[in-house]
């Protein structure tokens, strides 16, 4: 018993020393010294331990340098609400991975920079990470605007970027349809999300006459609305109204009136939550009583923002966040506790997921800091475990091929109710 205690004591003293990146020989010496102090009888044990430590430490020293990855997020600016949750998710994922032994023993280090949802800032942040911090890979922002500046830079610098820039133009060349080699998307793209809600509306609700109301000034909104209309037309439906507004507008009553006149069975709203809430109210105020469909921005606190009753509203959800059975429950509740927010935010899951995709590729890599190798491995991402499901990336588009979306609505207490899962 005494001997065991002694060994423990020695280990407790030694391990932090080893962690302090001391030279292996020095550490061993120190261990011997400590052992001497402890007592003669421990000498034998100490020598044994010292030898072992020397071996372990030698092995670790080779790889002690952590792998540095960057994270560029909208910490401030108009998209800071999703951006901060995203940053949290990525940092939390790195923390958990490090607690579980890192990547094949190597630790991860994540450096988060702010891009303010601004192209210029995004490029500065990117350059700083790549040139000054020499990061191996980058976790991208939840919005596409800053990311669109990196599509060519990442190829030139051979730095893979995994993120949530949902617009297709961030992952594939709009002219040729080819994937940008170093850009990877870790959530369903705008169009696959729009397809999901359109499919739901047409197949499950049996609707055929649609209208859209979206913000032409917002890439997110446009990238949702266009594929939605495409899907409807391709599948035998009809688009009876396409109404738009811009950032400068605050009154959509003329658009709402026009939609009411066109008498669609469902209206698809796509924009950020503030404008979506406004659009919802204008539609209802104009006397529209049909179904309203929405993008994943219509999650909580949407019902608090609208002044009309919320009914016949169906919208997209990436995760079944508040279901204790679902895989992401712990993650989302941790986030809510950690940041002190009342609403679960899918973006915490996005940050987490992006890191998982990247780390899975790093684990398989011979040299996890080699950009081209990582890129090739990322392209082969197959069945990587995420917060809730697994992801397989299509090498042709660099977007997930197996991820579907939930369709949700609000119950009478204005709580999210997951209705169904739409396969891609």
């Amino acid at each position, binding site marked *: 018993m005494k001997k065991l205690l002694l060994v423990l004591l020695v280990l407790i003293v030694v391990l932090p020393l080893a962690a302090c990146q001391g030279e292996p020989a020095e550490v061993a010496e120190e261990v011997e010294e400590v052992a001497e102090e402890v007592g003669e009888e421990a000498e034998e044990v100490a020598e044994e331990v010292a030898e072992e430590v020397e071996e372990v430490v030698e092995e670790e020293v080779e790889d002690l340098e952590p792998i540095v990855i960057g994270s560029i997020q909208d*910490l*401030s600016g108009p998209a800071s609400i999703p951006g901060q949750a995203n940053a949290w998710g990525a940092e939390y994922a790195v923390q958990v991975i490090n607690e579980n032994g890192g990547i094949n023993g190597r630790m991860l280090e994540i450096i988060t*920079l*702010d891009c*303010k*949802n*601004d*192209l*210029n800032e995004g*490029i*500065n942040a990117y*350059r*700083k990470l*790549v*040139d*000054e911090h020499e990061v191996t890979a980058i976790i991208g922002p939840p919005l*596409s*605007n800053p990311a*669109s*500046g990196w*599509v*060519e*830079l990442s190829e*030139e*610098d051979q730095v893979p970027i995994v993120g949530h820039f949902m*617009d297709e*133009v961030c992952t594939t*060349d*709009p*002219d040729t349809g080819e994937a940008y080699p170093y850009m990877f998307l870790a959530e369903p793209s705008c169009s696959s999300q729009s397809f999901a809600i359109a499919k739901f509306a047409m197949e499950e609700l049996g609707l055929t006459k649609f209208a859209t109301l979206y*913000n*032409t*000034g*917002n*890439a997110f*909104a*446009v*990238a949702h609305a266009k594929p939605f209309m495409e899907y409807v037309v391709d599948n035998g439906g009809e688009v009876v109204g396409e109404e738009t507004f*811009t950032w*400068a507008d605050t009154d959509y009553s003329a658009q709402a009136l026009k939609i009411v006149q066109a008498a669609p069975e469902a209206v698809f709203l796509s924009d950020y939550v503030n404008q979506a809430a406004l659009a919802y109210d204008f539609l209802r105020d104009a006397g529209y009583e049909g179904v309203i469909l929405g993008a994943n921005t219509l999650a909580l606190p949407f019902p608090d923002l609208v002044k009309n009753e919320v009914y016949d509203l169906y919208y997209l959800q990436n995760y079944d966040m508040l279901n204790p059975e679902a895989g992401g429950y712990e993650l989302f509740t941790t986030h809510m506790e950690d940041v002190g927010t009342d609403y679960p935010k899918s973006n915490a899951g996005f940050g987490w997921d992006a890191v998982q995709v990247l780390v899975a590729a790093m684990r398989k890599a011979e040299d996890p800091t080699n950009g081209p190798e990582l890129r090739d491995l990322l392209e082969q991402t197959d069945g990587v475990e995420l917060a809730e499901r697994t992801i397989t990336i299509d090498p042709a588009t660099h977007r997930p091929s197996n991820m579907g979306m939930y369709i949700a609505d609000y119950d009478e207490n204005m709580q999210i109710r997951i209705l169904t899962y739409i396969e891609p």
Partner: protein
Amino acid sequence: MSAYQTGLIVQISITIMTVVAVFAMTGLAGMFSLGQAAYMAVGAYVTFVLSRFLDIPYPITGIISILISILLSWIIAVPTLKLRRDYFALITVGFSQMILALVLLFEDFTRGSIGFSKIPRMDNLLLVSLVGLALIIFWIRNLKYSRFGRMCIALKNDEIAARSFGIDVYHLKIKIYVLASAIASFAGILMALRNRVITPDSFGWAQSAEMQIFLFFGGTNSLTGAILSAGGLKLLPEFVRDVTLFGVSMQEYRTIIYAILIIIVINFRPQGILGEKEINFKWLKNLYRRFKQSILKKNESYD
């Protein structure tokens, strides 16, 4: 030099370029415009959209885009510069909104809010920006010390007095505004080349307002003041990236800090930090002489 540093230098050259152009317009001629970023958008979009769809090399379409900016600014200037300054300032705000609306409207060509990407890489962008910047500073400096510069300062001070010396205030203002807009559109082309993608959000009125703020901080009557404050204030946030205050990154406060600085400057030193001073060789020589004298004096007192 790392690509990060060259990228920053290019960005700062672009900022200084635009502020120097605003110096000619606001500092010399007293026209307050909040639409200069719109001309950057015109430069960027026209150059690369034309280049892509007409298959013309972008240096040629670049020249076309500058010509279009000149035409546009002339159209804006003719009805508004006859009126008081307030009208002009308001019209420029409206103009910048209109340009952004047009970008969205022609989304088949501009790709709207999603952004126009795949702008070709320019290898010697750093050199081009620095040479461009040097040329523009040279121009505006010459402008300031020419008859046009003097007339501008006169009309900024007092339009009626300026007219009584036979100065054709209206046409002079048009000339300067067109010049400033042409420079802005050139800066827009460089910005597109640096970012490799153009989005309408990069050209909002906040960008135009930033140019004015940089100018007034340095001093409306000092070209070197404008240059130094534009460079300094633009660079500052890059250095405070990692500094935090009350748990919020200093970067978030940067605009608040600018605004407070400006309020203090206008209240207590309305002529700007440098006032009317220009930092040039003569000024430096004087400084050196004074410095030497004070050292000599000190030495004497030791003797």
